């Protein structure tokens, strides 16, 4: 058996001073603490600054402690409406992915379909959501189906475009390798095209995921009698600025959590950024 010898060179071990590990751990903790503290300080600093300099009344710009108090007192009510919003956002997010990924696969299998699908998708993308909501509410009422459909229509476009781009991003040399091995179209799709497109699909999720929450709230604000959007509407009519801000805080926290979750899962699916890829 012929074996190509691999040249090995003993790598020198770096000298580590005692206590440097403890110092590094402390430094890391400080870094994490600063990452949490600095945004909080800057947000509340700006908030108090705005109250001081704007002179707006408390029902327009309440103090942070009043908002936090409302958040605690009204939590059962906010939680109830939050569940409605999450239902619409999650269903819309799933549907946006089913439609977006489905259409992207169709376009790769039948490129001529792009002549029909892409103009329709771009048109749909550019119709103002207000129009979509109005038309769908007239056609289907103000139930959950209408809200899910609007979230779907608003969210599927980034998924479609990114997935399509990802499915076509396969290195032609890898496709030649698959053809030489007489791989089936299904094998090429599942074992090459789909994994290649994962980083693109993940990037789309980061947009569609948090947008689903924001869009769900906007629709509820317009037509619904449940959900955080509806709650904001009601609070505004009662000059309850504290409740509007409390709901806004919850919505922002949920959007951030969704974004972080997608980012975390995406990092583990993304072969270009996985921890094992780093040298």
């Amino acid at each position, binding site marked *: *058996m*012929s*074996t*190509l*010898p*691999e040249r090995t060179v003993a790598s020198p071990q770096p000298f580590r001073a005692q206590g440097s590990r403890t110092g590094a751990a402390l430094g890391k903790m400080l870094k994490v603490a600063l990452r949490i503290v600095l945004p909080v300080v800057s947000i509340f600093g700006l908030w108090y600054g705005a109250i001081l300099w704007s002179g707006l009344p408390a029902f327009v710009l309440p103090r942070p402690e009043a908002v936090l108090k409302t958040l605690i007192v009204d939590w059962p009510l906010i939680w109830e409406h939050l569940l409605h919003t999450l239902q619409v956002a999650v269903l819309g997010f799933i549907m946006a992915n089913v439609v977006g990924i489905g259409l992207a696969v169709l376009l790769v299998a039948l490129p001529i379909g792009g002549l029909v699908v892409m103009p329709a998708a771009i048109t749909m993308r550019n119709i103002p959501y207000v129009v979509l909501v109005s038309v769908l509410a007239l056609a289907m009422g103000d139930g959950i189906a209408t809200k899910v459909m609007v979230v779907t229509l608003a969210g599927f476009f980034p998924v479609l475009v990114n997935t399509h781009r990802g499915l076509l991003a396969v*290195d032609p*040399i*890898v496709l*030649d*390798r*698959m*053809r*030489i*091995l*007489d*791989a089936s179209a299904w*094998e090429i799709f599942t*074992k*090459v095209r789909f*994994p290649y497109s994962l980083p693109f699909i993940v990037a789309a999720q980061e947009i569609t995921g948090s947008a689903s929450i924001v869009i769900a709230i906007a629709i509820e604000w317009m037509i619904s009698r449940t959900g955080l959007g509806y709650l904001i509407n009601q609070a505004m009519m009662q000059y309850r600025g504290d409740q509007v801000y409390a709901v806004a805080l919850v919505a922002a926290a949920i959007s951030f959590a969704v974004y972080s979750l997608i980012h975390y899962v995406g990092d583990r699916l993304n*072969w*270009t950024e*996985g921890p*094992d*890829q*780093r*040298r």
Partner: protein
Amino acid sequence: MSVPISIRGVSCSFGSTQALGTVDLEAEPGEFIALVGPSGCGKTTLLRIVADLEAPSTGSVRVGGEPPSQVRRKKMLGLVSQRPAVLPWKRAIDDVVFTQRIARKAGLPADTLLRDFGLGGHERKRPAQLSGGMLQRVNLASAIAHDPALLLMDEPFSALDEMKREELGEWFGRELVVRPRTVLFVTHHIDEAVLLADKVVVFTPAPGRIREIVDIPVPRPRKSTFRSDPLFVRITAHLRELLFEREEAAA
């Protein structure tokens, strides 16, 4: 396992551009044929026709008496490109096993193959963690993992530096003695062609035709010391003459 190749009257055009002139070429089972010629003369196109990745405009190709499509279906072809065709998310060993799974041919045990290719201890590394030379060896191991009878190589070592290219070329020559197979090898390096091949086929500029087939009458594998042999010097000088003469004529 190795097969003969018969290329008769093969030419190829893409639209109004003739990529390859009419070519006739025969290869014995286990023979190593190097194709050299100026850029754009159609060497790669010929390789792709034999691989059933392109269709010839005229003529026919037979590999072991069968058309390339049939040979491809029998998973008897291996392809090594200039850039590694490895999957970026797969570890070295998984990439080799991937070839065997897709081809549904067990071939050699993947770990043995990688060890023989000097990649012992690196089996679980991903492409981003391997050097260019190591990556090309994973590429080679994956290309022959299903034990193909015909290996088609398109400038496989050209992305490597001079030292690595020589080292890998010499090793590959020895590897072919252990596991003989017919090889079609496209290269721009005359020295590499003479060191590795049984026959060097010299192409004319585009649209490429065969200008001359030069036999290398020294048994394989050849050591790099062969480069200082008067025969090596004579053959490479003759090949250079053939290539530069054509380029001057074209100019």
